[in-house]
Structures are given as structure tokens and as C-alpha cells.
């Protein structure tokens, strides 16, 4: 994870201020109905004001109202611009890199140099040491080490090769050795980078389903308030037919002020900033989302399916222990095992060499000096080993290692020994069963058909994963491990990793079935995978997170890509999804609760003069419970509060409300207390305070 950035960067602030003006364009404004309504009101009041001005009437009150109405629009734009700015800053450097990249396109076997942006799907491109990969693609020929730090922040280079599970390659990364040919898999504009950028730019951003629903709610409320305000003018008119001076209390600027105060401008102004900064936070965790919808869905995940290999475990079985047979020392066993593995280039073989070295300091010996004949692993014998004749006359050491079944066959076949009477073998068989039970794989080592002992191979669970799963459980997410292993092995790894459930001996279609079953039960399913055979499951899942290290097929099927290839990243994704919704909900509640205080500021201001007898105030001045000094200052205070609160809440919109994994009731109580009850009280204090200041300054 990158270090936490500063919330406000000077450059971003300046840029955002400029953008806020550009966003005054009606075409842009109309995307946000609530703020659009404010702008129309402000424009209407401005026009009337200039008409008045041209007739030589200047109203300081109207002027100030209009200024603050425009500030309201400007502040909302500013909130959005600043969120965009932060998101863009993140992706800007990547974009620059890519647009200036020159691609070496292969046309009829010779190279042509074209700008990367002109590449299309299925073009073939050559990349050599030092070249920047021009676009997302798949390696079709060759193998190369690639520096992906530009995207992942991880400095260690990774291997990308044709065929298999490591063929996908991302635009913007850099080849640091060798030469590869890449088939382009994305048109410009469709690459991950482009998708990422479009999620943090409001103009291109598609609203998420929940955002749409909330926008409908906010627009609906705004329409109600529009009718409230329009009809209020007629209601007041009814009461003073003939008295023109009373109509001043329902003048257009005042009615617009009331409308702007009532419609949910706080959440309306911050809505897109919340959405954009959510995507931005995701980027900050090195996760690319293909859509905002997926991020929202992540907050709802009930079940998380994880492929065992490569996600829960490191993926390779490693030697973890030597168990000698009676009469053999552990060191002797280790020595023999190492000898038998010297020429074994599989990860398992190498891990045996390493373990012997770590435990007993037995160094790898030079194969050629040993006068040894290596027996490579064959599918038929299921064994590998070495025949060593150290000196001319000395006895030949014939060492073999292999599975229990293979060794049994090997011993009983070439001699007439009865396996059942071989106590050493029976012993090792017992050990072997124990190892299997514990989730490991036993390999038996024999020398000259005498059983030396057992090597325990184990799939190693990634560090710290248990704690992360515990955290997921706290969030109410059930983890299910999927593995092709037998149930014994699966049980043990499941226990070690701390998953809630597992499916053993799973075929690829089992993953898909499990997801469909859970979905049929109404659950939201997340799936994390990396292999090509995970692709259908990733596509079926509500949230499919593909590891960046995975295949192109997997990355295309998922709706999120984790650039760090860290399966527990889901925790952050879920948190961000929940934060998004919580921030929206809380600010909506706050916004609506605010209206109560604004009513008590503006309604008495409008109606106080009704049935006022001479110097006595009208009966409805009783409603002025805040005791605001004059009707004008009351209205202006409400409008100023309404505008300023948007700016004050920008940091909250950008950071999101803190999520803690706890029950729904507890979260709800806290947020209701802060944003519901707080939303009722704060504006009373705020409006009163502004009124006091205004009165002191005497600007009304």
C-alpha cells in the first residue's frame, strides 16, 4: 500500500478552483439535478437583480443572497473538482507515459514504429529490453522479465512468458530483459488504465445503481420543495390581498433562498465527490475496478470464494520436515534426500535441497564430482533418484525418493521381500498417513531398498492470512476455499488458513456451481482467482477479483483487478464499498435533518409580518425560536450556512466515513447519532452564530 497522501495538495486545489468555473456550464450542471436547480434559482435571482439595477434600485440584501447562491453552486463544483483532481493526479503519470510510447508494430514480419495510441486489437508488437509495453496484451512468443512497478509499486520484476498462466501483460510496464512478441488485447480507450481514469472523471463516469437511486430520491425531494415554495407565495398572498408591502416577504430571491435551503444541496453537492473519491481510494490500494457497480456490490458480499493455490497458499509444495525411520539419523536422511534431489529442478526438489541446507548445513555438492548417475522423474515410475559410486570399489549407493505407492512397488518388485514384513516400510507408511492427515504430501527415501525415512512436503499458507480471514468473518463474510486436493489435505489447510468452509477435489465447473447455488440463495458472492479455469467463475460472481499475476482470460472475466495480487485485498475493497454507501446515507440524513432548522429560520421571516398590528410583530414571529435579529439576517444566515456546510464536509466526502467491522445495529446507532441528531442540532447553532456575526458586522 502506498503511503497516505495529503488530503489537499496545493496544486490540486488551484486546479480544482479553475475547474469549478468550467463546471458552471449548464451541460455539465444538468448531470446534478439538485445543484442544477440551485443554479437556475441563482440565475433567475441574478436576472431580476440586474433588471432592478438598471432601474436604479440596488438591494444590498438581494445582492448578498445572490452571491451566496452562486457560492453554493461553486462549492458543489469545487467538491467534485477536487475529488477528480486527486484521482487524476494518481493516474496522470501513467497516462503520460503511455501516450508518448512508441510501439514497434509487426507488419508482415517487419517492424513499423507507430504511436501506442494507434494500436488496435490483435496487432502484434515487439518489445525488447528497455521498451515500455505500449498497451495491454498477451505474450505470444518469448519470455521476459518485466518491471511492473509503475502500476503495482512493487519493485521486484516478474516473469512474463507465452502460453500458460503468466502470459498477460499490462500497458505501461517496462521490459527489463529479453525480447517478447505481444498480441494487443485492448483498443485504446479500453485498457485498464483508461477504465481506471474514466472512473475518476465525472463527465465520463457512469453513475452506479445506488447513486442513481439516491439521485432519484434527491430529485424527488427537490420537486416537492419546489411546489412547497411556489405555493407558499400564493398562500401568503391570500392572507394579504392588497397589501403590496407584505409581498416583499415572498419576493423571488427569498423564495429561491428557501428553496435552496430546503432541497438537499449538501448531499447533492457532494454526491459525485463521494463516488469519485471512493474509486480513488481503491486505486490507492492498487485495485482497478472495471465499474463502480462492482465496488458497491463488494460492500454487500456474503460469501467469498478463494482458489487455494496461489491465493491462500504460496502455490508450491515445499519440504518442511525430515522424519527418519528407526535406526537412521535425521541428518543421514537429509543428506540422502538432498543427493536424490540435486538434479531435480522442480520447486519441490529445490525445496528439499534448501531444507537440508537450512537444517544441517549440508551444502549442495557438485553433481559432476560425485560420479553419479541421476535418475530423472518419470511419469511411469513416479520416482527420481541417484546412483553414486563414490570410489571404484566402494558399494554403490542407490537412492530413490517417491510416493508411498511408487516406493512400495519399487521395493517389492525387484526383490522378493514381502512388504508386509518390512517393518521400516510399515513405519514410514504410518508416518505418511499422518502427514497426509496434516495436509502434507509424504515422499519416501530409500537407499539400497532400505527405507531411510519420509520427507514431508507441504503447501505453505501465506503469512498473516488467518488474521485477515478473521477480519472478514467479523465483517460478516464467509470464506470458502476451493481446492483440487483430497478432503484430508483440504481439511488441514482450511484449518491452518482459518477459512470457514472448503470444497475439496473441486473441478472448475464446481466453482461455477457453488457460486450459482449461493446466488440462488440470495447471497452476494465474491470470487478471487487467477487461472484461466477461474474465468467462468470470476464472470459469474457478483464481484470477481482477478490477480494481476493471473492470465489474460481471468483478468478479462473479473470486474476488478488487484495489481498486488494479494487475495486479502478484498477486505479493503469491501471497506471502500461500505464506506461509499455509508457516506452517502449519512450525508443524506444530515442534509434532510438540516431542513428543520432552516424552516425555523426562514418561515417566521417570511410570515412574521402577517396580521401584524402596527408596531407589534405578527403572531407567527413566535416560530422564530432562534431569536434571529431580523427577517433579512435570518434568511441570509440560512443561505450562508447552507453554502458553507458543503465546503466543511468536503474532507469527509473525500475520506469517507470510517468503517469498523461491527454489527448493523451498532453502526446505525452511531451514524444516526452523529448525522441524524447532529444534523438536527448543528444548523440551529450554525445559523444562530452566522446571524450574530452578520448583525455585528451590520451588513444587512
Amino acid at each position, binding site marked *: 500500500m502506498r503511503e497516505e497522501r495529503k488530503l489537499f495538495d496545493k496544486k490540486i486545489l488551484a486546479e480544482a478552483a479553475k475547474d469549478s468555473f468550467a463546471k458552471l456550464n449548464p451541460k455539465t450542471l444538468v448531470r446534478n439535478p439538485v445543484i442544477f436547480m440551485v443554479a437556475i434559482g441563482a440565475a433567475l435571482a441574478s436576472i431580476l437583480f440586474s433588471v432592478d439595477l438598471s432601474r436604479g434600485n440596488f438591494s444590498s440584501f438581494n445582492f448578498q443572497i445572490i452571491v451566496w447562491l452562486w457560492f453554493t453552486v461553486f462549492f458543489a463544483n469545487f467538491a467534485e473538482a477536487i475529488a477528480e483532481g486527486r484521482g487524476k493526479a494518481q493516474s496522470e503519470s501513467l497516462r503520460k507515459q503511455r501516450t508518448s510510447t512508441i510501439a514497434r508494430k509487426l507488419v508482415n514480419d517487419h517492424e513499423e514504429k507507430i504511436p501506442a495510441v494507434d494500436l488496435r486489437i490483435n496487432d502484434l508488437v515487439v518489445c525488447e529490453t528497455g521498451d515500455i509495453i505500449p498497451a495491454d496484451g498477451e505474450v505470444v512468443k518469448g519470455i521476459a522479465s518485466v518491471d511492473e512497478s509503475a502500476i503495482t509499486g512493487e519493485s521486484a520484476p516478474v516473469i512474463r512468458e507465452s502460453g500458460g498462466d503468466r502470459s498477460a501483460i499490462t500497458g505501461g510496464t517496462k521490459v527489463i530483459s529479453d525480447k517478447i512478441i505481444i498480441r494487443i488485447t485492448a483498443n485504446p480507450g479500453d485498457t485498464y488504465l483508461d477504465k481506471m481514469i474514466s472512473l475518476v472523471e465525472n463527465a465520463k463516469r457512469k453513475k452506479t445503481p445506488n447513486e442513481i437511486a439516491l439521485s432519484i430520491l434527491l430529485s424527488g425531494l427537490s420537486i*416537492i420543495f419546489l411546489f412547497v415554495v411556489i405555493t407558499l407565495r400564493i*398562500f401568503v398572498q391570500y392572507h394579504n390581498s392588497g397589501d403590496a408591502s407584505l409581498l416583499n416577504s415572498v419576493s423571488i430571491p427569498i423564495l429561491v433562498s428557501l428553496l435552496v435551503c430546503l432541497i438537499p444541496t449538501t448531499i447533492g453537492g457532494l454526491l459525485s465527490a463521494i463516488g469519485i473519491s471512493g474509486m480513488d481510494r481503491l486505486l490507492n490500494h492498487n485495485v482497478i475496478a472495471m465499474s463502480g457497480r462492482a465496488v458497491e456490490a463488494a460492500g454487500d458480499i456474503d460469501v467469498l470464494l478463494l482458489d487455494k493455490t496461489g491465493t491462500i497458499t504460496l502455490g508450491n509444495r515445499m519440504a518442511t520436515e525430515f522424519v527418519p525411520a528407526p535406526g537412521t539419523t535425521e541428518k543421514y536422511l537429509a543428506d540422502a534426500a538432498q543427493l536424490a534431489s540435486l538434479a531435480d529442478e522442480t520447486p519441490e526438489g529445490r525445496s528439499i535441497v534448501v531444507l537440508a541446507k537450512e537444517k544441517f548445513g549440508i551444502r549442495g555438492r557438485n553433481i559432476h564430482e560425485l560420479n553419479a548417475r541421476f535418475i530423472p522423474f518419470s511419469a511411469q515410475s513416479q520416482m527420481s533418484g541417484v546412483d553414486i559410486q563414490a570410489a571404484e570399489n566402494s558399494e554403490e549407493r542407490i537412492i530413490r525418493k517417491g510416493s508411498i505407492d511408487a516406493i512400495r512397488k519399487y521395493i517389492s518388485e525387484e526383490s522378493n521381500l514381502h512388504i508386509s514384513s518390512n517393518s521400516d516400510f510399515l513405519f514410514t507408511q504410518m508416518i505418511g498417513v499422518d502427514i497426509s492427515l496434516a495436509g502434507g504430501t509424504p515422499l519416501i527415501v530409500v537407499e539400497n531398498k532400505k527405507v531411510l525415512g519420509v520427507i514431508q512436503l507441504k503447501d505453505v499458507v501465506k503469512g498473516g492470512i488467518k488474521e485477515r480471514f478473521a477480519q472478514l468473518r467479523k465483517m460478516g463474510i464467509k470464506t470458502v476455499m476451493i481446492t483440487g486436493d483430497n478432503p484430508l489435505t483440504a481439511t488441514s489447510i482450511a484449518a491452518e488458513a482459518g477459512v470457514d468452509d472448503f470444497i475439496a477435489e473441486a473441478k472448475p465447473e464446481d466453482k461455477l456451481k457453488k457460486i450459482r447455488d449461493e446466488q440462488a440463495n*440470495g447471497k452476494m458472492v465474491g470470487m478471487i482467482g487467477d487461472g484461466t479455469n477461474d474465468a467462468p467463475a470470476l464472470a459469474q460472481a457478483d464481484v470477481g477479483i482477478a490477480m494481476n499475476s493471473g492470465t489474460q482470460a481471468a483478468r478479462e472475466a473479473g470486474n476488478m483487478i488487484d495489481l498486488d495480487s494479494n487475495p486479502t485485498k478484498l477486505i479493503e475493497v469491501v471497506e471502500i464499498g461500505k464506506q461509499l454507501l455509508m457516506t452517502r446515507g449519512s450525508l443524506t440524513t444530515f442534509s434532510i435533518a438540516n431542513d428543520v432548522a432552516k424552516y425555523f429560520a426562514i418561515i417566521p421571516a417570511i410570515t412574521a409580518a402577517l396580521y401584524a398590528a402596527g408596531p407589534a410583530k405578527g403572531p407567527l414571529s413566535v*416560530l422564530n425560536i432562534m431569536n434571529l435579529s431580523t427577517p433579512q439576517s435570518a434568511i441570509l444566515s440560512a443561505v450562508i450556512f447552507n453554502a458553507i456546510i458543503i465546503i466543511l464536509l468536503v474532507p469527509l466526502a473525500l475520506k469517507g466515513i470510517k468503517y469498523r467491522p461491527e454489527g448493523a445495529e451498532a*453502526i446505525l446507532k452511531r451514524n444516526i447519532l452523529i448525522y441524524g441528531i447532529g444534523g438536527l442540532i448543528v444548523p440551529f447553532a450554525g445559523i444562530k452564530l452566522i446571524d450574530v456575526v452578520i448583525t455585528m458586522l451590520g451588513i444587512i
Partner: protein
Amino acid sequence: MFELYELIQVVIFFVLLIVVSPFLGSFIANVANGHKNFLSPVLTKIEQIIYKFCRINPAEEMDWKVYTLSLLFFNLFGMIVLVLLQLLQSYLPLNPMNLPNVELTLAINTAISFVTNTNWQSYGGETTLSYFVQMTGLAVQNFLSAASGIAVMFVIARAIKIKKGNGLGNFWIDLVRITLYVLLPLSILLAIVLVSQGVVQTFSSYTEVTTLEGYKQMIPMGPAASQIAIKQLGTNGGGFFNTNSSFPFENPTPFSNFLEMLSIILIPGALVFAFGKIVGSKRQAWMIFGVMLFLFVISFACSAAAEYSHNNIFQTSGIMEGKETRFGILNSVLWSSATTAASNGSINSMHSSLSPVAGMFALLNIQLGEIIFGGVGSGLYGMLLFIFLTVFIVGLMIGRTPEYLGKKIEAYEIKWTIIAVLLPGIVILLFTAIALSVNAGLSSIANKGPHGFSEILYAFSSAAGNNGSAFAGLNTNTFFYNLMISLGILIGRYGVIIPVMAIAGSLVKKNITPVSQGTLHTDSLLFGILLTGVILIVGALTFFPSLAVGPILEHFLMQRGIVF
């Protein structure tokens, strides 16, 4: 102040309501689910005959569109029949007073009003409509409009219960079963008791008597008891006589008054438990019932306090103006609260004479959307709309996409919910504003100032909320008001029913999310409080300005000794 026996009677009222509602609700749920009940042995045969006669296929399931269209066409057909009956009244039998044909706009207004369960009456029953029209027209619609409302509530309940389905039941079957198993038996029972108390039930013509003062007076008669029973039970409220249940032949004794009052809320209260049983959550029903009861008690208590409070002008407390001495203040206020909370609209006192604050609560009860018990069926589906809103806002606050009883509440549901909440509110505000802006509207007002304003506001609130009660004072039998009120009623009824049905159509198709650690429980006290908050805030935000320049202004003026 009130007497102890009055208080005891109020307590009995609430205890009976709380005790009886769950049992009746459970029975109604059985009717909705088509299960056998204790009436089945008698009624199943009749039910089968009706299906056979009307060629209804009991196995046919309707999706929301077919169901809605069936309901709309059925209601339209009812309106046409009702208009024709009124227009041809003088040619039809059972018209002992030889009442003439009804004028067209009034006939349309009355037809719309009765088919939509509103029962707004711009006419006086005994001077306008014959026994025949009252019996075959109005009484029949009293049953059918109530059944229509309950049917819609069944549909939305089923939509929440059914997992990934399409069919929502069969409108004709729901209509027949509700009428046959619920409304008819209860009405017969109540009618008989009412007759025992002295409510008239006769075909004889009006009687002319000489009063003690020596004046001649016409005493109206008619088959009233049968119509009054369903008028109270089906939240219809349209009186047989002009002065509704304040008239001795419609509501003679304190006991009949008690029964009629309880009948107003009985079925709406029971339907909450029917809903709970259909969706399989008793606790859910208690939460909804609790919120309704709370709002009702608050409204009743505040109204009563206002009625008993000291009046500056008369230097006394407990004004009896507009109330019946048979019932007294407390029973008048309890009735006015019940009839406006439930969308009934029958009255036993004149709401125009209520103190401004009590009048305001009557208004607010209607304006909140007739969801405090509300009309039969309509009260509950209206309340569900507010639950959807609450679930949506509150659901976001816990960081999950909102769901209610496992069904996701998404953009589509929110869109229709907003429309259904918006339309009645707009009708109330906009139509009032229009009436205030034209002569045709202003000339009908009886009182000046805020009281006159309240008269108009109340009329359109009553129309949009399908309540049907009048503030009185306003002459609404004019071309302008007959038309505007008819329009308001139609929007208030179908502007909610269609959205609710659309939501049902969408919900029924959805999967049910199982309860998990992160699920927001909607049957908790906390949720009940939040739901109450949303109802009050949305309601208050919409209507506070209009109430401020109406009853609130009148109240403060009255304290200064200014009346209108």
C-alpha cells in the same frame, strides 16, 4: 376536564384494538392465502358458484400488469354504473321522496369518490339520493372499494414473500374472497348490533312530525344500518345522512358510537398483522402497528389537550361547539383522530369547529399520507412506501445496498416510491394554491383568514388522501370544486396504487437475501423510531409552511382574541 368513565372507555378502545387486531389479521391472512378458515364450510360453496357464474379460473395467476389493469377496469366499470344510477335516479324504484336525477358533475364526483374509497360527499344523502342508489350504488361500492384496497395490499405482501416469482394472485378471486369472508360477515354483524341501538333500516318514506315548538319537521328514513356498517368497517366514511354519524339515526347511542369508532380502525389495524403473517414476520407487524399506534396516540392526545385547553375568547375550556352532547368532547376528538388517521372520513362532530390545533392534527393525519392505520389496504401499502424510503436512507448508513425483508430496494422501487409520495403532496399544495388564485375557489369559502384557508387545504387534503371528511364551511358542490376534487381523488388513489403495483411487480421477481450479520433488522425498536422520524420529517417538511399559515396562524391569532 373529562370524566373518569370517559378515560376508561378510551382505554378500553385501545385495549380492544390491540387485542382484536392480531386475531382478525391472522384470519384475513388465511383468506389472502386461500387457506381454509372457520367460515369455509358455509362459504366455499358460494365462492365456487360465483367463480363458475363469472367464469373465473381460480388457478389463474396474474402478473402485476394484468392485476392492475383488472383492478382499474373494474373500478372504471363501477364508476360508470354509479354515474348512470345517479343520472337515472328518478326512473328507478325505491325513491319514495321522488328525488330528481343528479347533476352530472356531482354524479361524477360522487361516483369517483365512492369507487376510490374516499366517500367525499358534496351532496346531502337524504336530500339527493334515493334508497335504490344508496343501496345498489353506494353501499355496493363501499364493499368493492374496500376490497380493491385490501387486494392491492395482498399483492405487495405477496411480492415481498415470493422468491423470484411472477404471479401475484388473481384480482377477481381476491375481490370475491375479501368481500365474502371478511367484509360481509363483519358488516352483517355490526349492522344487526347497530339496529339494536336504534339505527334505522327501513324502506318507508320520510316522516313528517310536529315538534314540541309546533314546527313541522321532516324526519329522513332509509335502509341506513346496512350501509353504515360497511361505511365504518371499510374506511369509506360516506354517511347515509348528510350529517354522518352525528345524526341520531346513524349513530344513536354511546355504545353505537363506540362500536362505529372501533370499526374505523379495526380492519386497517388487523391488516398490519395479516401482512405480518403473509410475509412470515410477526415482529414486523408489531413494529408497523407500534409506529401507527404511537402516531395515533400522539395525535389524539394533542388534539384532546387542545380541545380541553383554556379558550381566551370565551374565558372557558372545553368548547362544545360542533359536538354532540351524546358523545362529549373526548369521544368527539377520539373519533376525529381515528377518522382522519384511518382514511375513513365519517364524522360525529364538525371538524371546522375543532380548535385550530386539533384541526391541524386532523389535517396532518391526512397529509402524512393516510398511513396511521389509514384506509383498508391503502394505509398499509402507504406505510410500506415510507418503510422503503426509511430502509433506503438508513440502509445506506450501515454500508449495505438497502433491502426490506430480504428484497433489495433499488432505483426502480425508489422511483415509484417517490412518485407515490410526491403526487398526493403536490395535489394538496397545488390544488389549494389554484383554488386560492381563482374566484371560483375563493367564493366558496365561508370564513375569512386562516380558517378559510384551512377549509380549502382540508378539502384537497381529504381528496388526495382519499379520506372524504370535510372541514365543512366550504361549499364544494360547485363545478370548480366537484371537478378539482374528483381529479385530486383520482390522483390520490391511482397515483399511489399504480406505483405500489409496479413496485410489487419488481419485488416479486427478486431473490430473497438471507439474514446475515450485516442485515438491518426492520422489526426493532430502533427501526420503528427511525421510521417515525422519516414519516414526520418528510410530512412536516412538505406541509409545515401550509400549516403555519393555516391552523398555526389561526391558533396564535385566537390567543390574541382575533377570530374569523
